[in-house]
């Protein structure tokens, strides 16, 4: 809270210096080689608050080890303010740094405890200086890396050979492995949702479905119908529905060869007589028909 209030005060204090900020910005723009044709004043972009601070320190030609904190803070706040004036979204990190700077500035203003031992009286700027130096080092390293990459990109390996198809490297990273896994799971979730929807299905609906299928085609493959079932429960329902329809003499089941597909056909059509194996179920189906019917399926069966 203290910091926020302080920050607002500091902003207000610097608001009269708008002209000098714009001058600074224009200067920075020229330094960055931006074209002067831009209608709007363009702010130099900084990767983050540390970048901006390094820029200001360089521009003011002050030592990084002895930063004139009041001056640099003012410049920094001017910049952040200008960003807002120009409707540039100010990233949170810039505001955090603004608060940090103001905090350091206030600490510098506090009188030092004269009784405190010399070594304990740490410079409030120390941590910031360390951070800036670290940041500076990595910027230097990034620059060297960039140069290396440029040189490397100028070298070429041999053209691919016929034998390169045997590349042992798996073209996937662990993150891709994870992404693939997640996709599979998402797909699975979608299927489960369908399953849940289908689980609501009653045997009456299954019977209606079989009848409807037989309206469209004279014969329906039982295998196809079973394959379409997405859960065990649906398979059981389908099976019960078929038994029910056979019992009611609505359909017959036909099998033209041993272990071949079983076809469902409406009873009473003349073509039935020709290829019919028998009104009874083939052996295999009969066995699975003995599978225990759970209690909650029975009422559905008797409903019909």
């Amino acid at each position, binding site marked *: 809270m203290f910091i926020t209030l302080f920050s607002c005060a500091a902003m207000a204090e610097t608001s009269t210096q708008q002209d000098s900020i714009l001058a600074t910005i224009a200067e920075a723009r020229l330094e960055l080689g931006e074209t002067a044709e831009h209608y709007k004043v363009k702010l130099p972009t900084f990767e983050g608050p540390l970048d901006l601070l390094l820029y200001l320190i360089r521009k003011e030609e002050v030592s990084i080890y002895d930063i004139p904190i009041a001056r640099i803070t003012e410049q920094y706040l001017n910049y952040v303010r200008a960003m807002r004036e120009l409707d540039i979204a100010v990233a949170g990190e810039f505001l955090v740094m603004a608060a940090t700077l103001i905090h350091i500035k206030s600490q510098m203003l506090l009188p030092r405890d004269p009784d405190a031992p010399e070594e304990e009286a740490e410079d409030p700027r120390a941590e910031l200086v360390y951070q800036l130096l670290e940041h500076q080092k990595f910027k230097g390293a990034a620059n060297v890396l960039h140069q290396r990459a440029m040189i490397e990109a100028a070298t*070429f*390996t*041999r*053209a*691919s050979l016929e*034998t390169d*198809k*045997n*590349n*042992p*490297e*798996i*073209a*996937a*990273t*662990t*993150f*891709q*492995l*994870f*992404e*693939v*896994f*997640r*996709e*599979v*799971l998402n*797909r*699975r979730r979608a*299927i489960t949702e369908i399953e849940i929807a289908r689980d609501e299905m009653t045997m009456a609906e299954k019977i209606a479905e079989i009848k409807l299928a037989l309206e469209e085609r004279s014969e329906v493959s039982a295998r196809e119908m079973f394959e379409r079932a997405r859960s065990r429960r649906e398979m059981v329902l389908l099976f019960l529905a078929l038994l029910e329809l056979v019992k009611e003499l609505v359909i017959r089941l036909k099998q033209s060869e041993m272990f071949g597909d079983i076809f469902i056909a409406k009873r009473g059509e003349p073509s039935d007589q020709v290829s019919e194996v028998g009104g009874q179920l083939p052996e295999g189906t009969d066995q699975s028909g003995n599978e225990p019917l759970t209690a909650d399926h029975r009422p559905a069966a008797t409903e019909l």
Partner: protein
Amino acid sequence: MTIEELKPIIESLIFVSEEPINEKQIAAILEGESAEAIEAAISELMAEYNERGGGLELRKIAGGYQIRTRPEHSEYVRRYLKSQPSARLSIAALETLAVIAYKQPITIPEILEIRGVTSTSAIKTLLDRRLIVARGHKQVVGRPMMYGTSKEFLIQFGLSDLSELPNLEDFEDLMSS
């Protein structure tokens, strides 16, 4: 350019070319260089490759030039290429591998349950490439075989152990920016 300047450029072009590259193609890149100079540079290069008697030769083939290994060492070359496991993973294999990696030990029916499609040929590929291993039978009806990832899997994905596999949180960390 002098012949000495032309030679390394031409050598580079022959080296990177997918198909044998001919004088005309080279001349098109080296604008302004005469056909004679280019031909002279190529024949000097070929002579150098012959004199050196290294592992590579520069040969005229199918109307162009190509750098290739000498047949004398084909035995070793073949042995090396054979030691390289074959082919990249298909999407099916990669998906199956991902499911096994995250759900191991897991049986084929369980993988089917998750992927919604059978994975038997993918499993075979993964076993052939030693990325997965059998992990014993699951004590359920049918005693299906369980599978898990192998040491080779860790090596190829640069993991020191399975806890290093990224998880959902890591993924969300990245996506929440």
